[in-house]
């Protein structure tokens, strides 16, 4: 059984160890007997709704992001359709920003985004940099923590009615004010957290894999066999400690 991953612009958006996230998904899939097949989707190439179980959009430096932004905006309709028909998606940092309605510069101009997430990002003056700890509730009543690192000047403001990925326990989050971080739309997740995100937060990796399997099998998300995860737990413990100790202030 394979899980088909579409990795958008791996040549351009790869700054915050995005390959670490993919490596974690691949390893955890393999250990459960699934195969992760990763296809790169570059500038000018189509997103074909239904062709991928999981789409991944990473972060880039400002220059690289500018280079792919118009192309990503053109792919917007196809990405929205893919998520609407049940594909999973993970977007980190720059990818998260560009999947919103757009990025408003200090001069007021709007660089259009893909319009998947209900948010708009506004250029800020002070970068929000540091360790972050979140509390997420992706399923009602099940609260789980996420530890990562954020580094962004943009302030992302969620539309009323848009669902955040989690509540900020330590750190800045979307805009340094609201107390929320990231955005979640069905099986799609966008976040500023890198570090990379998945190695030290294996529960989220498994959540994404289960959602992707649900898509590929047109069924319910399966429950995956637990893995030992001792090192993962230790890495999380240290990262969460860093957020408590030195994460940004709201």
């Amino acid at each position, binding site marked *: 059984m394979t899980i088909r991953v579409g990795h958008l612009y791996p*040549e351009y958006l*790869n*700054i*915050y*160890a995005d*390959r*670490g996230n993919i*490596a*974690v998904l691949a*390893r955890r899939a393999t250990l459960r007997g699934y195969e992760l097949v990763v296809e790169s989707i570059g500038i000018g190439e189509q997103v074909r709704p239904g062709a991928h179980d999981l789409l991944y959009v990473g972060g880039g*430096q*400002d*220059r*690289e992001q500018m*280079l792919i932004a118009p192309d990503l905006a053109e792919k917007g309709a196809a990405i929205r359709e893919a998520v609407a028909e049940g594909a999973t998606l993970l977007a980190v940092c720059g990818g998260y920003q560009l999947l919103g309605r757009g990025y408003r510069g200090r001069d007021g101009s709007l660089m259009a985004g893909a319009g998947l997430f209900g948010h708009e990002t506004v250029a800020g003056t002070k*970068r929000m*940099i*540091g*360790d972050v700890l979140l509390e997420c509730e992706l399923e009602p009543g099940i609260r789980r923590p996420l530890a990562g*690192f954020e*580094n962004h*000047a943009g302030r992302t403001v969620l539309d009323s009615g848009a669902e955040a990925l989690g509540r900020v326990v330590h750190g800045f989050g979307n805009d340094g004010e609201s107390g929320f971080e990231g955005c979640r739309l069905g099986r799609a997740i966008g976040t500023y957290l*890198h*570090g*990379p995100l998945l*190695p*030290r937060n294996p529960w989220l990796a498994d959540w994404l894999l289960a959602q992707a399997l649900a898509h590929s099998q047109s069924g319910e998300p399966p429950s995956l066999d637990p893995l030992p995860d001792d*090192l*993962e737990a*230790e*890495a999380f413990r*240290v*990262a969460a400690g*860093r957020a408590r100790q*030195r994460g940004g202030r709201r």
Partner: protein
Amino acid sequence: MGVRLGLETIAARAVGAVSRAAGRGGGTTLPGKLLWKVDPASVDALAARLTSGVALVSATNGKTTTTAMAAKILGQEHLLVWNRAGANLLSGLASALVSTRAADFGLFEVDEGALPEAIWRTRPRVVSLANLFRDQLDRYGELELVAERWRTAVDSLPEWTTLVVNADDPLLAALAEGRAKSLRFGLDDPRHARPTLQHAADSKYCVRCGQPYIYAAAYVGHLGDYRCPACGHERPPLDVAARDIELAGLTGSRFQLDTPQGRTAVELSLPGLYNVYNAVAAAAVAVALDVSPVAISRGLADFSAAFGRFERIPAGSKTIVVLLIKNPAGANEALRTLETGVPPVLVVALNDAIADGQDVSWIWDVDFEPLLPHVGRVVATGDRAAELGLRLIHGGLPEDRLEVLPSLEQALDRGLGLVEAGTELVILPTYTAMLSLRGILTERGYVRPYWDGTT
């Protein structure tokens, strides 16, 4: 010297002596911090007293080594003041300036963020910009931002300042475009090119039109002989170049150095192509100051290594080889020097203090993969040892070959225990891990403290 400056200088020297006496780590930045706080303009005044002028060296990678190499070359003709312990913020420059009374020439490595102010305060004769790699993004924001600051700083340079740039770095070559007093250095030996750009390659898109460059040769990261297929923007001709390069594993390298004043042979006792870049950068600074090729070659041959960057430390019946790692490009090159003789045991130490970079995601951009199938055992250590262990496992290291020991001292002892007498233990530490390891080795009597000035 004004009376005020004189008194402050004496006070700062006294604090430096006290700081060293208290054994708090060399006192390399403390007195400068004091002077810097009391009177920042003192840096301008102290620098202005240097009769032969000032040269500034900046880069994300290799500036400590490049500066130390340039010091060996320039020290033959000048009495130098330089920040040998790598304290490269303005306070560090102040410390160095305070500590030396008789110098005629100032040579300073400068933190990439501090460069504009250092230029403004020291009015340098030479500014050398050697590379821009991803480095500690948690501190500086992104590459483009640093490049933009450098652009502004370069535009403010007086006409009589020589700008030395690495022509193999597209962003830096562009900074020297149209400037009369400039020198371009680089490597020219396609036999040492990498077949593909490394994962962490940064500036791979044309600075003019944004198309991906085509590389006739990519040497280290994005440094190389590039050309844009769309608009034709390409590496400019080299004024100072290393050619006919021979690498000899961990022991060193030799190459021919071409300068406008002629060719000379260079022997380096430092490993790797990245140190050839450092040497050519140092040579270009010397060329800008009219040093002869013979003197350049002699200075480089005399050079051993900058503090903590590459050291061979005898430890009883075994030898410890320390290669500093601090960002993807530097770590890739350190690993590359190991490819010819993969060590049976490797200790990798990852800390996440400010000087290491608080954001540890960079370890995922390091190409550990080629090494991992061949290494017998890896000891992951430091404050973020678990994170490092995860990186290595996902890079293909079998779990039974990994040991995770956060305590640096335990990891050091474990590593030494694993290698046989008469052989070497290779350690790759980040900056503060290197300082701690050095502290442990100093306590055991294997190394001298770094402020002895013998490194």
